C-alpha cells in the first residue's frame, strides 16, 4: 500500500461517510433538498476518486478505457447535483442553463456506453510513472475532439454558478455568494488540472477528485452551519423557556398580590374554567362544576343586564374586544360583594370569537368608600341647594311679612273704629292710605327680587347650546351613574348660538335634569333615562327640551307646577322651577311643562338666537 492509494481511498471513504450522514439528514427532513443534492454530489466525488484510483492501477489499454468510461458517470452526476445544489441553496440561477448542462453532459456521456467510443481519447496508450512513491499508470494518446463538448458543459456549470452567485451577492446575501464563488473556484481548478492530461499528454495521473473534495468541504461546511444554527436555536429556546417560566412566576405573583381570580370562558363549548381564587370570590367550591348560566344567577338581578350587555359588546368587537364591568354578586349565603372584572375576547383566524379570558377582583371596600363619599357629596350639594333656597325664602318671607303685618293690624283697627257710634273717618282714611302704601311696599319687595335676576346679575353673551349641555352633563354624570340613569343628548352641532347667561342657564338645565332624575325614582332599569334635545324653533329661537321616562305630572300639579313653594318632594323647597321660569323669562324666553305621549314629563324652554347668528 502506497500514498496515492491511501489518499484516494481516504478521499472516497470520507466522501462516502459524509454522504451517508447527509442522506440521513435529508431522510429525516425531506424538505432540506440541499442536503440531498449535497449527499449526491459527495457520493459522486467518492465515485470519481475510486475511478481515478482504478485508472492509476489499470495496466492495459482496455482496462484504462473502461475506467475512463466509468468515470464519466460520477462526473455527470456530480455536475448535475452541484447545479441543483446551487439552484436550491442559493435560490438563484437560470433554470434553462441548468437544463442545458444536464442535456449537454448527458450527450457527452451517452456515446461512451452506446457506441463504445472513448469520449476523451481517440487512441489511447498507457505508461507507468513514479507518483508519491508508487508506480502508477498514466494515459496518453490522441485527444478526441468530442471532449470539448464535455468540457464546454463544465464551463456552463461554472457560468451557472457564477450567475447565481452574482444574483445572490446583489440580493445582499454575501455569505452565500462567497460559497458560490468558492464552489466555482474548486470547479475551475479541477477542470484546469485535467487539461494537461487530456489535451497535452502530460505524464501525470488524472487528479480531479482532490479538488472536488475541497468543493465538498465548502458545501458541507456551509450546510453544517444550518445544523449549528439549529442547535443554537434550541439553546435559545431553552433560555426563552426558562424566561417564560420566570414570566409565569411573576404573573402568578401579580395575580396573588392583586387578589385576582382568573377565568377563561370557552365560547365554542360554552364552559368556564376558573382559578381557585376566582371560585372563592364567587362562592364556588374548588371542584364544583361551573356553568355560564349559574354564574350569571349569582350576579345581582339589577346588574345582570348590564353584565350581559357589556359581554355582548366585547364579543361584537367593541373596544377591540375588551370587556370591563363592575357589578354586584349575591353569594349563596346572601352576602353581597362588588366585583370588578376585565377581560378580552380572542378570535380564531376567521375572526370568530373562540375564547374570553379575564380577571376579577373584589372591590367591595372601594365601592363602600365610593358610596359613602358619594352620599356625602350629595348631602353637601343638597344642603347647599336647600340653604340657598332657604335663605332666599326666609329673606323673602321677612321682607314681605312687614307690610303684610301692618296691613293686617290696620285692617283690624279700622274694623274696631267702625264699631264706634260715630267713627273717626279721618282715622279710617289714614288707615286705608297706609294699607295701600304697605301693599305697594310688598309689591316692591317682589319686584326687587325679580330685578336681582333681571338686571344686575344677568351676563348675556352668545352661547353654544351643545357646550352648555355638555357642561351640565359633566356635572350630573356621577349623580346619574349612582342613580343608574342614562342621560341621552341629542343636540345638533350646527345650531346657531343663543344669547344668554351661561351660569344661569346651566342652573336651569341642571335643575330640569335633576328633576327628571328625581322623577325616575322607582322606575325600571330600561326606563331610567333622561333626554336632552335641542332644535330650531322658527327663525328667532332655539327650543331645548328635557324629558324623562317617569310617570309624568298629575293634571292638578301641572297647572301650578311653576308656583313657588309647590313641591312633590318630601325635602323639596318648591323654588327650583319658579326660579327657572324667572331666569328663562329674564332671557326673553319661555319655560313650560307637558306630559309626553310615551309617558313621562317634558320641560321645554326657548332662548333667543344671538344677534348675527342666523340659521
Amino acid at each position, binding site marked *: 500500500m502506497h500514498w496515492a492509494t491511501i489518499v484516494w481511498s481516504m478521499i472516497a471513504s470520507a466522501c462516502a461517510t459524509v454522504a451517508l450522514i447527509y442522506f440521513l439528514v435529508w431522510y429525516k427532513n425531506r424538505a432540506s433538498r440541499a442536503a440531498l443534492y449535497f449527499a449526491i454530489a459527495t457520493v459522486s466525488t467518492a465515485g470519481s476518486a475510486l475511478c481515478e484510483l482504478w485508472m492509476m492501477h489499470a495496466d492495459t489499454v482496455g482496462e484504462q478505457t473502461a475506467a475512463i468510461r466509468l468515470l464519466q458517470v460520477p462526473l455527470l452526476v456530480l455536475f448535475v447535483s452541484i447545479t441543483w445544489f446551487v439552484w436550491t441553496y442559493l435560490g438563484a440561477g437560470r433554470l434553462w442553463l441548468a437544463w442545458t448542462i444536464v442535456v449537454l453532459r448527458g450527450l457527452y456521456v451517452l456515446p461512451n456506453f452506446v457506441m463504445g467510443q472513448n469520449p476523451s481519447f481517440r487512441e489511447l496508450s498507457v505508461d507507468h510513472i513514479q507518483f508519491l512513491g508508487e508506480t502508477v499508470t498514466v494515459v496518453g494518446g490522441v485527444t478526441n475532439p468530442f471532449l470539448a463538448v464535455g468540457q464546454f458543459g463544465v464551463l456552463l456549470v461554472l457560468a451557472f454558478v457564477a450567475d447565481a452567485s452574482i444574483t445572490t451577492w446583489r440580493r445582499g446575501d454575501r455569505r452565500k455568494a462567497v460559497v458560490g464563488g468558492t464552489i466555482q473556484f474548486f470547479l475551475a481548478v479541477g477542470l484546469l488540472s485535467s487539461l494537461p492530461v487530456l489535451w497535452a499528454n502530460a505524464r501525470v495521473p488524472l487528479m480531479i477528485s482532490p479538488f472536488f473534495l475541497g468543493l465538498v468541504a465548502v458545501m458541507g461546511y456551509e450546510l453544517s452551519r444550518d445544523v449549528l444554527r439549529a442547535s443554537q436555536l434550541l439553546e435559545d429556546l431553552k433560555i426563552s423557556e426558562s424566561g417564560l417560566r420566570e414570566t409565569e412566576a411573576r404573573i402568578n405573583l401579580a395575580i396573588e398580590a392583586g387578589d385576582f381570580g382568573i377565568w377563561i370562558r370557552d365560547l365554542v363549548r360554552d364552559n368556564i374554567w376558573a382559578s381557585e381564587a376566582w371560585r372563592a370570590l364567587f362562592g364556588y367550591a374548588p371542584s364544583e362544576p361551573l356553568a355560564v348560566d349559574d354564574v350569571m344567577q349569582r350576579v345581582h338581578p339589577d346588574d345582570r343586564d348590564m353584565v350581559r350587555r357589556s359581554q355582548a359588546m366585547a364579543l361584537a368587537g367593541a373596544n377591540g374586544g375588551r370587556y370591563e364591568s363592575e357589578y354586584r354578586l349575591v353569594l349563596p349565603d346572601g352576602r353581597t360583594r362588588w366585583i370588578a372584572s376585565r377581560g378580552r375576547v380572542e378570535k380564531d383566524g376567521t375572526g370568530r370569537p373562540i375564547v374570553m379570558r379575564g380577571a376579577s377582583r373584589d372591590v367591595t371596600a372601594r365601592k363602600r368608600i365610593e358610596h359613602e363619599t358619594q352620599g356625602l357629596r350629595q348631602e353637601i350639594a343638597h344642603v347647599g341647594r336647600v340653604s340657598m333656597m332657604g335663605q332666599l325664602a326666609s329673606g323673602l318671607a321677612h321682607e314681605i311679612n312687614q307690610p303684610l303685618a301692618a296691613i293686617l293690624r290696620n285692617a283690624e*283697627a*279700622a274694623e274696631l273704629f267702625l264699631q264706634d257710634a260715630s267713627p273717626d273717618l279721618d282715622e279710617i282714611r289714614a288707615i286705608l292710605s297706609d294699607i295701600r302704601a304697605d301693599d305697594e311696599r310688598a309689591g316692591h319687595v317682589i319686584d326687587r327680587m325679580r330685578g336681582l335676576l333681571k338686571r344686575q346679575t344677568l351676563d348675556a353673551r352668545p352661547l353654544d347650546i351643545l357646550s352648555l349641555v355638555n357642561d351640565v352633563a359633566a356635572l350630573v354624570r356621577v349623580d346619574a351613574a349612582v342613580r343608574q340613569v342614562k342621560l341621552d343628548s341629542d343636540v345638533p352641532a350646527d345650531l346657531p348660538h343663543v344669547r344668554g347667561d351661561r351660569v344661569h342657564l346651566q342652573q336651569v338645565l341642571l335643575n330640569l335634569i335633576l328633576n327628571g332624575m328625581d322623577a325616575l325614582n322607582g322606575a325600571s332599569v330600561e326606563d331610567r333615562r333622561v333626554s336632552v334635545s335641542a332644535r330650531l324653533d322658527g327663525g328667532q329661537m332655539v327650543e331645548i327640551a328635557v324629558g324623562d321616562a317617569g310617570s309624568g305630572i298629575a293634571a292638578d300639579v301641572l297647572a301650578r307646577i311653576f308656583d313657588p313653594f309647590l313641591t312633590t318632594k318630601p325635602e323639596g323647597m318648591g323654588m327650583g322651577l319658579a326660579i327657572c321660569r324667572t331666569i328663562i323669562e329674564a332671557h326673553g324666553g319661555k319655560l313650560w311643562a307637558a306630559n309626553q305621549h310615551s309617558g313621562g314629563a317634558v320641560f321645554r324652554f326657548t332662548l333667543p338666537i344671538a344677534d348675527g347668528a342666523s340659521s
Partner: protein
Amino acid sequence: VSITEPIVHIVDDNASFLAAASRLLRASGFTVKTFRSAEIFLTQRDENAPGCVLADVQMPGMNGLELQTALAQSLNPLPILFLTGHGDIASSVRAMREGAEDFLEKRAPKTQLIDAVKRALDRGAREREARARQRAVRALFDALTPRELEVLGHVVRGKLNKQIAGDLGIHERTVKLHRTAITTKLRVQSVAELTRLTDEAGVFKASAPACP
C-alpha cells in the same frame, strides 16, 4: 291721661307697622306711645309710667334683646313683649328665659296680641304694686337707729332678751326698751309680724342667713 293709666310702649323701626299696631291697640282701649328705636324709648319714656313694652326683636342699633337687658336694670322695669317678622327659635328661647312676657309673630291673631298685652299690663301692675309696698316698708325701717337694727337682727333670729343683752354687752332692760321702740316704729303687734315684715323688706338678706 292720668298718671296711673298704664301705657303700652311700642318700639319698632318699621313706621307703618308702628302706626298700624298703635291704631289697633288704641281702638282696643289701650293708651299707646310709639318709639322708632330702642334708644329713643330709653331716653324719652316717662320713667315712672306704668305699663308694658311691645318691641320688635330685629331693629337696627339696639335690638329687642339688648333693650330687654337695659330695661331690666332700670328703676321701672316694665314687662316686655316681643314681636318678630318670623319665628326665630334661638332668640325667642333667650327672650323667654330673660323673663319676656311673650314672643309673638307680627301677624299673630289679634286676640292673641290683645291677650298678651293685657297679661303684660297686669303683670306690670302687680310688680309695680309690689315694688311700691316694698318701698313703703323700707321707709319704716329707715326710721330705726343702728342699735335698734342690731337688736332687731337678734330678735328675728329668735334670741331671748337675756342672750341679746349678753351678746351686745348691755343691760337686759335696755334691750326691752329697744324692742318697744322697734315695734312702735314698725307698727307691728307681734314677733311673728315683725319677722314677716323684716323678711318682706329684705333688710338682712345679705348679712343674715335665714334661721328657723
